[in-house]
């Protein structure tokens, strides 16, 4: 109800700025009338500009010569494009940060996926009250702000001697990936028809066989989705590594960006080159796996 009221001003504003009073809402649904797509297209291009302008700015600035940065037109492509900034960043230990990010991300994703698949399977197949309770606890975890746990984590991990190790980042990252991962996997595994389980049971399959030969192959796409999603989260994580690591050679990429910003404070092109470099690997993953990511995310949260 509330949202309907909040919707109207924006929708009205849109109507005022577009020539025909056509909500883009339904334009695609009934595929009649070509002009509607044009209207929708105009709105789409405007939002596209909002998204792409910062990206474009970052890319062209990163290939601008440092000296030219202060005199250039901020949106014009550089007269003499250069990759010097990229070379500088690569020479400033970028490889180490990249490797650390890779280790942290891969180990978090692998452990989370295995552990959550087992948990989700148990939650779907078990009728025990306790199991329901644990599921509710996981769901409650969705509402816990990660921030609130960094101080105790700093305390505990310091005590057990894990402070300033990559494991200090991995362990809590796994814990905070569990709720959403379990939620998505449970929603997915629930849709596997019960008869499949029954018929395999009759054939004498045990729990592990069921899990390995039935659940695992059937939930492959959901597993891919949660893996990509978690990878994204961990790869971009900032606070945990900020608080739980200290040495330069334990730093991950987002922190390295932050360091670069300090180190290159007067060299904006270099800072932005580091931003671009940090994006490239995940951009490749995104382009390869976008469909998968979108499909699974919506299955989990769109309910």
């Amino acid at each position: 109800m509330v949202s309907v009221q909040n919707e109207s001003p924006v929708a009205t504003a849109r109507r005022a700025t577009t020539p025909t009073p056509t909500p883009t809402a339904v334009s695609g649904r009934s595929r009649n009338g070509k002009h509607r797509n044009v209207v929708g297209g105009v709105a789409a291009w405007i939002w596209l500009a909002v998204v792409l302008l910062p990206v474009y700015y970052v890319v062209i600035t990163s290939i601008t010569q440092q000296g030219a940065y202060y005199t250039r037109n901020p949106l014009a492509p550089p007269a003499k494009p250069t990759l010097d900034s990229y070379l500088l960043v690569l020479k400033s230990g970028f490889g180490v940060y990249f490797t650390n990010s890779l280790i942290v991300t891969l180990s978090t994703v692998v452990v989370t996926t295995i552990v959550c698949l087992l948990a989700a399977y148990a939650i779907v197949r078990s009728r025990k009250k306790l199991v329901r309770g644990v599921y509710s606890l996981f769901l409650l975890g969705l509402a816990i702000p990660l921030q609130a746990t960094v101080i105790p984590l700093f305390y505990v991990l310091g005590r057990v001697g894990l402070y300033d190790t990559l494991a200090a980042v991995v362990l809590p990252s796994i814990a905070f990936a569990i709720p959403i991962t379990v939620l998505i996997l449970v929603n997915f595994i629930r849709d596997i028809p019960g008869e499949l389980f029954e018929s395999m049971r009759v054939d004498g399959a045990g729990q592990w066989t069921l899990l390995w030969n039935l659940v695992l192959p059937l939930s492959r796409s959901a597993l891919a989705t949660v893996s990509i999603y978690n990878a994204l989260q961990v790869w971009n994580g900032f606070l945990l590594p900020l608080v739980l690591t200290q040495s330069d050679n334990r730093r991950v990429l987002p922190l390295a960006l932050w360091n670069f910003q300090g180190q290159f404070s007067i060299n904006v092109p270099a800072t932005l080159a580091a931003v671009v470099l940090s994006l490239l690997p995940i951009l490749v993953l995104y382009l390869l796996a976008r469909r998968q990511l979108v499909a699974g995310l919506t299955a989990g949260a769109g309910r």
Partner: protein
Amino acid sequence: MLPALAMFLAFAIIPLVIALGLSFTSWDGLTAPEFNGIANWVSRLTDPLTYHALWLTFQVIVLSWLIQTPMSVLIGVFIAGKQRYRAVLAALYFLPLIMSSAAIAIAFKALLDPNYGVGHAFGLSVLSRDWLGSQTYALYVVILVIAWQFIPFHSLLYQAAARQIPGSLYEASQIDGAGRMRQFFSITLPMLRNTIVTSSTLMIVGSLTYFDIVYVLTQGGPGYATRILPLDMYLTGFSASDLGNASVLAVILVIIGLAIALALTRLSGFNRMTSDQEGA
């Protein structure tokens, strides 16, 4: 299930209990924490800065919702359609999804630089104001940058939900002579109700966790203008080395997060019931 439970308890739930414990100690992060009773709680709850941080956080939550929800609904519903180039557009729309907060903050910091930023491209001095250095505007700039980052994610949810609305509803309403505005408000929005609740819950609880982007953009400044609660906690704890006081803020953060989540879940259950009764 046990491994997941163990990990979750050890690194998510038990820390909350420890946070509560630490909130009754004075601790500088180097020496051992020392019990000091409710001193931290008293000093936090009588400090106007705490309420300032809460007020900023509240503004961030409300304004973020007001900006992001309508935008996400419109974009999500639009890209759920079958326009030409839609696939390409959608891929580009979702670019901010993959960028780290640190990257986004650094990009916008350069972009908004009063001397060399993008404001100069248009030759309007109004645009090249020191947005992030302004007591008045900094918070709103931060909220807009956050919107830039998160609208794509919520659009994604609405896109999926809008795709699930049966096309027959639109055909039926067209026969009844409903215009497109009418269709949007009478069919699309009501059908998206559950998604609005889900997305709002994620958005509002998520608002409590904005840390990195604000940290990199403004470090809470100028002055205290953007020192929202999570940032206040970090700066109190790790910059001012007062982890006891910071733990109080952490506990407050958890309480608010859980309270909001529970309230919204109640609300969503209520909504679902009414929508069933109305028969949509």
